[in-house]
């Protein structure tokens, strides 16, 4: 297989297979969760589920003071790499072209050097969280294979993307192919691991808020 054949494969059949697994996995899991249903609550409602639910989606984005004090590093590094990932995935011009091709519309991109800087910061933040994970005794004890797998499939597209853009090491088609392949790996692993939180996060926050709202207590 030549490098161009490899590149054509990851851009074609490979991407198609990854999309099928990614979309099917996510849709099935969301349906499964939603269709589980809830037991009828016989108690009288003391407040609104809806408003409390939506409010909680927002309020939980800001860590409370005591939590922040306890896990400052986790929260700061976590925010950095999540924002970084968001900027890199959604505001790099070639990525927007991909979205435009799939969903039919695009949006303005950030200048490439800005995205490049975000990539460096994000990679550093992800390396730091791994070091922290092994340095912290409790975190180390709790770490299992899935945690490491999820970390790897997240940082792999960043690193391969960075070296593909800067054209370091291998030939260009091989680098680009490797980058796309690493994204496909992420897509395949996504629905079956804790990465699924990207889709369930707001659902569960809403639910937490809704329970409190029904009871008429602050969430």
């Amino acid at each position, binding site marked *: 297989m030549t490098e161009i054949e490899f590149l054509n494969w990851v851009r*074609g059949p490979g991407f198609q297979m990854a999309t099928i697994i990614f979309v099917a996995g996510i849709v099935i899991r969301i349906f499964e969760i939603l269709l589980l249903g809830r037991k009828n609550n016989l108690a009288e409602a003391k407040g609104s589920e809806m408003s409390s639910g939506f409010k909680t989606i927002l309020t939980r984005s800001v860590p409370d003071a005591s939590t922040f004090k306890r896990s400052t590093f986790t929260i700061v590094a976590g925010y950095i790499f999540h924002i970084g990932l968001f900027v890199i995935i959604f505001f790099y011009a070639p990525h927007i072209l991909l979205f435009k091709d799939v969903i039919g519309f695009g949006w303005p991109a950030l200048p490439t050097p800005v995205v490049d800087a975000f990539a460096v910061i994000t990679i550093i933040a992800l390396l730091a969280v791994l070091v922290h994970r092994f340095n912290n005794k409790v975190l180390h004890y709790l770490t299992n294979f899935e945690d490491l797998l999820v970390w790897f499939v997240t940082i792999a597209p960043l690193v391969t993307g960075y070296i593909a853009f800067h054209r370091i090491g291998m030939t260009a088609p091989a680098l680009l192919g490797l980058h796309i392949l690493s994204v496909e790996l992420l897509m395949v692993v996504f629905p079956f691991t804790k990465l699924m939180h990207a889709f369930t996060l707001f659902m569960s926050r809403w639910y937490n808020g809704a329970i409190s709202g029904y009871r008429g207590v602050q969430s």
Partner: protein
Amino acid sequence: MTNRPNGKNITLADAMRSQGISRRSFLKFCAATASMMALPPAMIPRIANALENAKRPSVIWLSFQECTGCTESLTRAHTATIENLIFDSISLDYHHTLQAASGHAAEAAREAAMEENYGKYLLVVDGSIPLDNPGYSTIAGISNYDMLMATAKGAAAIIAVGTCATYGGIPHAKPNPTGAVSVGDLIKDKPIINVPGCPPIPVVITGVLTHYLTFGTIPELDHIGRPKVFYGKSIHDRCYRRPFYDKGLFAETFDDEGAKKGWCLFKLGCKGPTTYNACATTKWNNGTSFPIEAGHPCLGCSEPDFWDGGGFYKALSMPTENISKTAVYTAGAAAAAGVAIGALNRSKQAASKKAHIKVTVDDLTK
């Protein structure tokens, strides 16, 4: 082919003199060739000496499944250039597009050249070879496969010219109806120099010939058989529009402001980032320009399978298949599967609820 000096023992120097090429312009050519091939200046006299005294090597040119574009590229020059002279001064003993003879007379010329120069002649091939049915492409009733295998046997080296001969090219594009393969797919026991491109740059082929005439060896090749001196750098790395790519300034259409300002053509499908060729440096039409300079994205023609990259105007970051359709169908099927699994879970829930037996005080005091 026309106006060339007669006789096989004539040297290139004789040929040049008869064409009125001055020694000064010849040396200029040697210097340009040396710098193009990244050779030290000390090599210029050696190139000049080797070329001047080079006996015209016998060259057999076979054209298979091709469009003659490669021959056009190499022979079409508006003025008689020294590159052309190099090309003219080889003893082109067989080239069915250019030669006057046809049919059996032409084949006889090929066989005579093969016999006379067995083990010494250069074989140049353009076009791919169909394997599905030998009848898809024949010359004088001989299948391309048979002619290639027979002619390759006595060749000193083979130069595969054009993307069809090097990697299968257009005939090899999906679904490859003729079962087309490249020269390298069939011949494993001879040195093969791949000079891909659709067509290749004329100066690249003369460069390869010069190298062969000067050193008697084939130039250093990359992992897919291309001379490193010409195919060592990508179009992107040598592109004068590269600074715009680095800044993220792209032409969105062929006639927008970006296009007029000469911004990067990545979004219009440029394959420059993944294509290795010398276009951006040697350029075309006697150094006039190259496709990107003319405002068109690079097609990636010197790379294998360049027709199967999902379309010339699709950016490299876009998938080659219709992913929207795949995603919509998958989501539909998955939603149905999700409902089915949900229903199954619910019936399980109901069944376990039904099977649940409450423990009474009596049970506990038994």
